[in-house]
């Protein structure tokens, strides 16, 4: 599912995908609602791509490639943190 990427010197990046920039008219409203946003249960999980390490290879993972499966997405503060 995840596509392999070469481990070159450039540090690959990912990010959210699929979200269009909001049209001008909505921008002011958008700014007013700015601040810390939390996603909502019962709503679509924002799609993204991200480079990663999986079973001895570097891969590029896209969340929407896992439609049809249950996904646990876990964030953590950093590698080598203790708990």
């Amino acid at each position: 599912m995840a596509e392999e990427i070469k481990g070159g010197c450039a540090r690959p990046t990912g990010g959210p995908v699929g979200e269009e920039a909001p049209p001008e008219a909505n921008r002011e409203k958008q700014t007013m609602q700015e601040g810390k946003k939390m996603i909502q249960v019962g709503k679509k999980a924002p799609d993204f791509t991200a480079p990663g390490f999986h079973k001895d290879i570097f891969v590029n993972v896209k969340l929407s490639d896992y439609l049809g499966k249950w996904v646990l997405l876990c964030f953590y503060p950093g590698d080598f943190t203790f708990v």
Partner: protein
Amino acid sequence: MSIDSMFVHKMWNDHELSKMVDGGVPFAMLSDAGGKVGTVYGVYDEDAGVETRGRFIIDPDGVVQGYEVLTPPVGRNVNETLRQVQAFQLVRETKGAEATPSGWKPGKMTLKPGINLVGNVWKEWKTDMAFD
């Protein structure tokens, strides 16, 4: 997923995690440089420049069914996460005909929401069942 590069993920897996788990980490360790994905999910701490312990359960339709976010010093309860996944899977399999009351685990009774259950949950479910 963390803000670390995939290179650091490899080092952590090879030098520490593979000594805790046979064969190393079985799932993908993802890299979120700059916290772009974490920001969208509401778990990126800009002041600290790291991601908090966010955990999202995403169903086969790509819908978020649940999440939990902890500050860094407290680790997660993996069993509780798996229990929630099993509960959401049961609800999905029954197309919502069954619901899992507080304290539900696989094998325990479910409730069948409907007009006959209104005001009658007390007959079917006891508060002790939330704790056993």
